[in-house]
């Protein structure tokens, strides 16, 4: 096979795509273009072990497979624009890169709050540099931390901060419970209780109106407080914004693609009806044949690997001129989150079964396993607690995998 596949985005999805192209038999050239200066590294420890000082940055790098040793890495080089019909990319360094096949793997970046106020002292957590800056801030003595957003990253960061001995850690969210969107009410309540028992505070049911600062009016002042929509002010030396993420797809503008939330793919992870463009990882909005055919993005660590395996087979077949005769992509979503001394372990799609949550095992105050149902069928399980709970969830994994596909 001759020609070149370019992978845009050099994180987990980009690495796995390159490796899986080789596994699928692609022998042509592979170039991975990434805007970060680093080789792909593992992000989950950024809000946990790395922030806690229990793992070094060096320990995060993935070890690329030997079969991908001849992949060309162009790091520190953002893709500026794509002309898909002409099969070329414009890179920010002014060069142009031609491709036969393209893998979209540019992932997400944190959403920022547009509220008025100083920016110094406000953090996000997505990259190595972010985690380093936040760790430096959190380990200064006597800091008060406000985390905005009670999703999984917000909860993890706040829990890590408590573990570091930070004296005041408050999580703000307009919703009434942490992680209630993906988990539903009873599990989110169980989560809240655990956090409060471990010293984390919450300001729930209220948003953020702005930030207070000190030091001047030049816009250089540092944050000193978070002004809530209900008028309260929470003193803060460090603010973490974890209010969701936006897909990095601007470079694909102008190609007539559906980029409303990530890049829309078909059931084979192809983009825009083009046989030579596929998408992988957090940025891909794909229908999951296991569920209801509604395209969704899935920001789980298991997805870059799952999508890369499937997309690499599809792309390799198409570049070789073969029909794609693979079943529609149907991964079993898998997610975990480590907070304080407990783990949250999820298999399947709990969010689809939030309306019918039952305790399958244990009790909500201890190790507990929740089952999520839709139309009477189990569609997801979530365990909360120690290793026994996680092992309990694992028992249901096979059942979730065997379940016939659901239709809406």
């Amino acid at each position, binding site marked *: 096979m001759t020609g070149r596949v370019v992978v845009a985005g050099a994180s987990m999805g980009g690495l*796995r795509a390159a490796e899986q192209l080789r596994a699928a038999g692609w022998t042509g050239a592979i170039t991975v273009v990434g805007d970060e200066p680093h080789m792909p590294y593992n992000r989950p420890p950024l809000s946990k072990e790395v922030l806690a000082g229990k793992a070094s940055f060096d320990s995060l790098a993935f070890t690329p497979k030997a079969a991908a040793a001849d992949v060309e890495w162009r790091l520190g080089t953002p893709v500026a624009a794509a002309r898909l019909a002409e099969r070329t990319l414009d890179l920010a360094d002014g060069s142009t890169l031609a491709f036969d096949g393209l893998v979209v793997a540019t992932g997400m970046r944190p959403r920022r709050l547009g509220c008025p106020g100083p920016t110094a002292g406000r953090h996000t957590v997505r990259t190595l540099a972010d985690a380093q800056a936040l760790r430096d801030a959190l380990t200064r003595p006597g800091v008060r931390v406000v985390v905005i957003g009670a999703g999984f990253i917000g909860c993890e960061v706040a829990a890590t901060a408590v573990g570091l001995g930070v004296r005041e850690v408050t999580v703000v969210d307009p919703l009434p419970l942490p992680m209630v969107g993906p988990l539903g009410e009873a599990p989110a309540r169980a989560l809240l209780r655990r956090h409060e028992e471990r010293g984390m505070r919450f300001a729930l049911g209220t948003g953020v109106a702005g930030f207070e600062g000190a030091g001047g009016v030049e816009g250089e002042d540092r944050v000193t407080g978070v002004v809530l929509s209900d008028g309260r002010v929470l003193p803060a030396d460090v603010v973490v914004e974890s209010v969701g993420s936006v897909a990095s797809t601007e470079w694909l503008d102008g190609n007539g693609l559906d980029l409303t939330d990530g890049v829309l793919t078909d059931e084979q992870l192809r983009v825009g009806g083009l046989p030579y463009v596929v998408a992988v990882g957090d940025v891909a909005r794909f229908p999951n044949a296991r569920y209801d055919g509604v395209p969704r993005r899935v920001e789980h*660590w298991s997805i870059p690997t799952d999508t890369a395996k499937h997309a690499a087979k599809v792309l390799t077949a198409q570049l070789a001129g073969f029909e794609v005769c693979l079943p529609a992509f149907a991964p079993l979503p898998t997610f975990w989150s480590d907070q304080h001394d407990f783990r949250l372990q999820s298999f399947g799609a709990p969010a689809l079964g939030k309306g019918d949550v039952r305790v399958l095992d244990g009790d909500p105050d201890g190790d507990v396993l929740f089952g999520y149902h839709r139309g009477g069928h189990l569609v997801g399980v979530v365990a909360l607690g120690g*290793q026994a709970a996680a*092992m309990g969830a*694992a028992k249901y994994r096979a059942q979730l995998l065997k379940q016939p596909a659901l239709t809406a």
Partner: protein
Amino acid sequence: MKVVVDMNKCQDHGQCVFASPDVFSMDDDGHLLYVADPDESLRDEVEEAADVCPLQAIRIEA
């Protein structure tokens, strides 16, 4: 094939057990056990296990 798991990194997620049940298993307390020198025919599933380890604690040597 030689498999090495960095037990300082391992946090007993058990994802490797799904990927390669012949090589990886959990004891009754939920801690990882593994075969250090599995048969070459299991390479594909061991590679899969290494891929899905959230801590990237599994290394395949030779």
